[in-house]
């Protein structure tokens, strides 16, 4: 079971990074970005294609894919900031559902519906504890998720750029009236989260189910993790991602429960939503 839990840490780190991205998007640009992992998936697929068909070295192709994922995300952010600047969060989020479906369809058309032959960027184990092997991918994703959360927190609380982002997220019109440029800042957030998502998917994709749908739907466990922090707290988003990944890994080790791992993110989402609404339910009952 311990081996399973540790094996699940790599996925947990991936969920944690995506959850941090989702939390940042929700807090700073008022979007629940359902296409968060789909843009990452698309960037990775292009990287694999460049590596196989153009002959680019794996690392160079990965860099191109990461830049493309960031650019795609920035483009979507620019579109939403331009035409849906005053729209509510529901409308803005609905647009990202359309992009999610578009990117999955496009990847089927361009790359087929089979998993891609990814070359691992970080092959092999990092170390072992009592016979339990911990891979390099696991170490890197877990460390990355913690560093990204700490870095984002420092950026938001210690820099004038972060202060402007927080102001913009609370009262966009007031912030603009003070001369804070809403659109460039919003596009920067989209680009940064797109880059981080593509980077972490590029690292983890070779070691897990990597068909277009599976990678795009990573947004579901990431949402479950972000929900633990109420789409506000970065620390809880990281904890949520890591715990969810470990729980899935542990459950997968038990034959009678292994199928539950696929439903675990949904169970977490439903449980957290019900828990968050408990006061309203009790108030109505009274």
């Amino acid at each position, binding site marked *: 079971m311990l081996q399973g839990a540790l094996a699940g840490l790599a996925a947990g780190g991936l969920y944690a990074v995506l959850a941090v991205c989702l939390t940042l998007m929700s807090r700073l640009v008022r979007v629940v970005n359902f296409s968060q992992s789909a843009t990452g998936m698309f960037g990775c697929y292009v990287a694999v294609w460049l590596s196989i068909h153009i002959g680019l070295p794996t690392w160079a192709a990965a860099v191109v894919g990461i830049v493309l994922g960031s650019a795609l995300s920035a483009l979507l952010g620019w579109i939403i900031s331009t035409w849906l600047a005053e729209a509510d969060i529901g409308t803005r989020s609905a647009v990202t559902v359309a992009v999610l479906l578009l990117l999955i369809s496009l990847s089927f058309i361009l790359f087929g519906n089979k998993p891609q032959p990814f070359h691992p960027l970080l092959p092999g184990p990092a170390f072992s504890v009592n016979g339990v092997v911990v891979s390099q991918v696991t170490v890197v994703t877990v460390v990355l998720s913690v560093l990204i959360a700490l870095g984002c927190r420092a950026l938001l609380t210690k820099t*004038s750029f972060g*202060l*402007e982002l*927080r*102001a913009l997220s*609370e*009262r966009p*019109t*007031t*912030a*603009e*009236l*003070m*001369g*804070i*440029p*809403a659109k460039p800042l919003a596009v920067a957030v989209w680009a940064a989260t797109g880059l981080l998502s593509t980077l972490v998917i590029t690292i983890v994709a070779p070691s897990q189910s990597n068909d277009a749908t599976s990678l795009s739907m990573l947004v579901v466990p990431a949402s479950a993790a972000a929900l633990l922090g109420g789409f506000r707290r970065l620390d809880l988003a990281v904890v949520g991602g890591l715990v969810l990944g470990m729980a899935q890994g542990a459950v997968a080790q038990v034959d009678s429960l292994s199928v539950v791992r696929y439903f675990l993110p949904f169970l977490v989402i439903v449980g957290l939503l019900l828990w968050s609404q408990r006061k309203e339910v009790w108030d109505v009952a009274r």
Partner: protein
Amino acid sequence: MSALQVKDVTVTRGAGAVIRDVAFSLEPGRITALVGPNGAGKTSLLEAISGVIPAASGSVHIGDTEVTKHSRVARAKLGLAHIEQGRAVFPGLTVMENLKLTARTWPRVEEVLALFPELDKRRNSPTALLSGGEQQMVVLARAFAARPKFLLIDEMSLGLAPVVFTRLLPMVTRFAEEGAAILLVEQFTHLALGVSQDAIVVSSGKVTYQGSAQDLLNSPETLHSAYLGE
């Protein structure tokens, strides 16, 4: 310092015009009271000047630059500030963080806090925890910190006790003395006219009086008829 000019501006909301062909200018160092009954179009006019909503026709000029098609950010960079109706604080930010957004330098933050001792005591409190009067002080202090050339103030007294509002008005006067041109929209008409040099009365979207604030204050009949648009 140059003036802000509003030339024949019409503003529409839905199918109808809420402001029709309004023209005036704001001069440096002077306060202009913009008064009128509820629904006269005062807030819409301010929003059209600062770019929150577009003007249907007419033009807005800051100095020699026409800004009618400029973004809110571009207008702010030309020295225009707009204090919106209600308490437009950033509730999750502390008093200091609110001020740092516009002050840019620590000496300026300290300078502004010296004007508002109440805020100085609570500089690290989130503004969500402040009283209504203190929140309005934060908004005013934040605008002062930016040193704008033109300041539009919309119903600063909304939801405040008159005693709190009278504490804030001298700050507006002080700011004008430093050279800013101020357009003051206020429900407490007499208090607003008392600190203003110029006055504009709008009723049903049209200007019904434009002239000296003191003359309007000394002539209740004029004020009454201007409000009613007679």
